[in-house]
């Protein structure tokens, strides 16, 4: 698979180029959005969005439905017109270029394969539209089908194929022209979990090989975390944070990002003391803990994010442990998921790895939990 993919990357045969190297010689386009606005009647679907997508980058728009991610994708595809702001591809404005002249590839949620054409005809369609000569087109189609492991299905119609196969045809059609930008609109949402995971990996490897910029839209945070170079989290028509998956998960900038991406404990606490880079906080239950000072908050109240897997279960009561009462406990296989309530009434979610000798706590059982300064993230 890797060698096949390598043959796809025309400018350079190195399939494992760094992002920067890709940016120089590769085909991926850099996209710049400046103050992009789109209204549907009174509803502002895109609210002055600015975004810089680097050439060759895999960027994901993540957000709940109605957050404006599909609107943004449609604007970039050219299906809808901007109401304000501007859009540049490699520095050139594209506002007035119609969709079919933008030269992007796109994968649709419903696959949108042409039902009257065979798989090979579907994949050949963009080449035919581009006026590529027959021999070249046939070669490119064969290559692309080979890479997507569809060669034996070339003569079938979409209706004769499974969902996963149809999705691979849709991807093949989107990349056959080696477009500078490939748009993917929730392409995996109609597939079952196992298939989704295998196609995630396929898309990721494909991205490395072809070097196109990929703009991926999803509402599935797990998908966004595993696939992206960077994630842009959207809410109510705005991009609320754009960062690498690690930073999005560990250092969310506000409550929305913290609770939308991953499971979280958001703990209201009072700052009691500040010592250089570390501060001491006390939650409503009276438990005092330390956190990295990070942002500029000096005094008063703060919201602290502690991910469930960062909470440790202590052996017994102690000065640095908070007593909680278990309300429910689930065995999920590799982890235990425990819900507990502090004496002050706050609920706490705890995830710990399954290990020898660890038993599933019963509801009502008392536990003592703790976390360290590095496990906390103070929200702005």
């Amino acid at each position, binding site marked *: 698979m890797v060698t096949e993919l390598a043959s796809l990357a025309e400018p350079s045969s190195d399939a494992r180029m760094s992002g920067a190297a890709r940016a120089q010689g590769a085909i991926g386009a850099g996209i710049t959005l400046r103050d992009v606005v789109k209204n549907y009647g009174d509803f502002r679907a895109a609210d002055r969005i600015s975004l810089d997508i680097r050439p060759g980058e895999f960027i994901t728009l993540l957000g709940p439905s109605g957050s404006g991610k599909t609107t943004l994708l449609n604007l970039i595809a050219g299906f809808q017109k901007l109401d304000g702001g501007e859009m540049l591809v490699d520095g050139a404005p594209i506002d007035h270029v*119609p*969709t*079919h002249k933008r*030269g992007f590839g796109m994968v*649709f949620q*419903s696959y949108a394969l042409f039902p009257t054409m065979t798989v090979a005809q579907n994949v050949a*369609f963009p080449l035919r539209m581009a006026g590529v000569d027959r021999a070249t087109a046939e070669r490119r189609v064969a290559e692309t089908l080979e890479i997507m492991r569809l060669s034996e299905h070339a003569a079938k*119609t979409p209706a004769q194929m499974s969902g996963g196969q149809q999705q691979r045809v849709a991807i093949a059609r989107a990349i056959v022209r080696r477009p500078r930008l490939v748009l993917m609109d929730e392409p995996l949402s109609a597939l079952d979990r196992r298939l989704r995971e295998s196609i995630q990996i396929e898309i990721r490897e494909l991205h490395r090989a072809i070097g196109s910029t990929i703009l991926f839209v999803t509402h599935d945070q797990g998908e966004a975390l595993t696939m992206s170079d960077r994630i842009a989290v959207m809410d109510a028509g705005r991009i609320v944070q754009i960062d690498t998956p690690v930073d999005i998960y560990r250092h969310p900038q506000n409550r929305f990002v913290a609770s939308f991406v991953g499971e979280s404990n958001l703990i209201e606490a009072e700052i009691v003391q500040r010592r250089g880079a570390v501060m001491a906080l006390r939650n409503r239950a009276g438990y005092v803990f330390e956190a990295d000072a990070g942002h500029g908050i000096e005094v008063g109240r703060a919201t602290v994010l502690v991910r469930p897997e960062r909470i440790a279960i202590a052996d017994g009561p102690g000065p640095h442990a908070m007593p909680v009462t278990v309300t429910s406990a689930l065995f999920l296989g590799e982890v235990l998921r425990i819900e507990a309530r502090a004496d002050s009434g706050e609920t706490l979610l705890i995830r710990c790895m399954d290990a020898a000798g660890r038993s599933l706590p019963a509801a009502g059982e008392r536990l003592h939990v703790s976390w360290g300064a590095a496990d906390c993230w103070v929200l702005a």
Partner: protein
Amino acid sequence: MTAAATGFPGPRRGSLRGRLASPVLLLLPAGLFLGFIYLLPVIDLVRLSVSGPTWSTFFERVFSVPLYWDSLVRTMQISLTVATLCLLLGYPTALLIRRSSGITQILITAAVILPYFIAILIRTYAWMVLLGRNGPVNKLLTGLGLLSEPAQLLFSRGTVLLGMTAVLLPIMVLSIYSSVSRLDAALPRAAQASGAGPIATFWRIMLPLTLPGMGAGFLLVFVAALGFFITPTLLGGPGDQMFAMHIVQQADFINSEGFLQALAVVLLVITLLFVGVAGHFLGFEFIWGGSKAASPSGKAAGAGAATPRRSLLSGLADRIGWPVLRLLGRLGPAWGRWTVLVLAGAVIATLIVPILVVMVISFSSASYLTFPPPGFSLRWYEKFFSDPNWMDAFRHSAVIAAASAVISVLLGASAAMGIVRSEIRGKSVIMLLLVSPVIVPPVVLGLSLYSLFLRFDLVGSVWGLASAHAIGGIPLVVIIVAAALQGVDRRLEQAAALHGASPLTVFRTVTLPAIAPGLAAAGFFAFLHSFDELVLSLFLSSAQLKTLPLMLWADINYQLNPVLAVVSSLEVLLVVIGLALAGPVLARTRAGA
């Protein structure tokens, strides 16, 4: 394990009780009814047509007399032209419905659907008013100075084509729209994202996908046009005689038995031939608005149809059509938009304007037809409601239509249950037989029924006429109720049965409430079908049992006056009220079929 061993009572396989419980039996009433009143007379018709000295005597006469042969050729030409015109005008209209949204879409859809349910007789009459000597078109042309004096616009081939196209257009639009609306909205976008411009998207993606809808619409219009009688009679001149008109004229001569039937058989055979060929390619489902593609797992998908191969014809179309479109593409994208807008706008105008003009004229104070009316008055409404002849006709029509609706709903709904709920083989053949009356030219049906009615002394009887109208009412009911039944979640019925409901209770508490709107809509359309029916009534009614369409027909042929506009306006009102009540149901069965 036997029933006794499990402790459950139950009919054994093949026992009488088990057979009586089978839903197949529900097909029986409609089957017997149609067999007696529809199939037998048609068979009798064929028998009479071959009863000459040799079997082919009468047919030889049909084909050797230039009058009939010419008329046959003319009928084909007119039908083909009308179907082509409908296709060219209907496609942009269907596209416009699809592209518009909100209130615009509702208005355009209403403009197409409303005429669909108004009697052909009334819509033809509206055109006579519109194009008449004192009609708005003549007024407009003289007013603009294009004509020095009002011209005779009626009674020519042009008006026949115009009238028939206008009358049949809704069928085409609805047929194309049903295939356009089924398309995934992402398909044209996918084509654009793949580099296809608007014209390439249309030619390579939209056109191939809507071809079945276009084919179905074309055939339905063509076949309907073949048997057309009312519109060409009223709008045509002496040189525009269509084949069905000869059959009605010949029916007045007693000594033409055998030859008359041969004429009808010729028309019937030609109609069935076209339907047969079309059904072979499109699947016979096109008759009732279903589609072959709807069953992807069926045998149709496996054979030929699913493997797109470039046939000679499509290759040729590509060679010619594509370059032409490319040339048109140079005109710029605005042209395409304007073409759709202008054509569709013209279509909507031709569908709605005549009806509006007739409604305005019904309030005219003038004693003859003139537009715009010189003043407002209700005198023609008064005249209509005070004239015992009109009132009698109105009452007859209402009674006959109500009786016909009852027959149609009882027989049609039970047949629909039988088809949808049984495991019987050859469902599509049975469905085809039940629905087939809609494609038989009414003139042929009327003629075949006439001898049956004579034999059983049914001519001029309310139940006779109601039954005859039910031949066309049953297919409507079957189509609507079958669609409604298919929308009922089988699991709801199973859940009710599981929780202890008997089959009858399941039907009463789960099935019936779910299909009740469908039944109501079906009843309304069966009523309307009978209320509007003219051609069968011409054959089967008597001077004592005049229906409203018969009165209209007589008056239109005798003298055009505003009372007819009153009747037309009342009919439009009836259809509007009915559609408003049945609208939601209709939307589900038509678009979702």
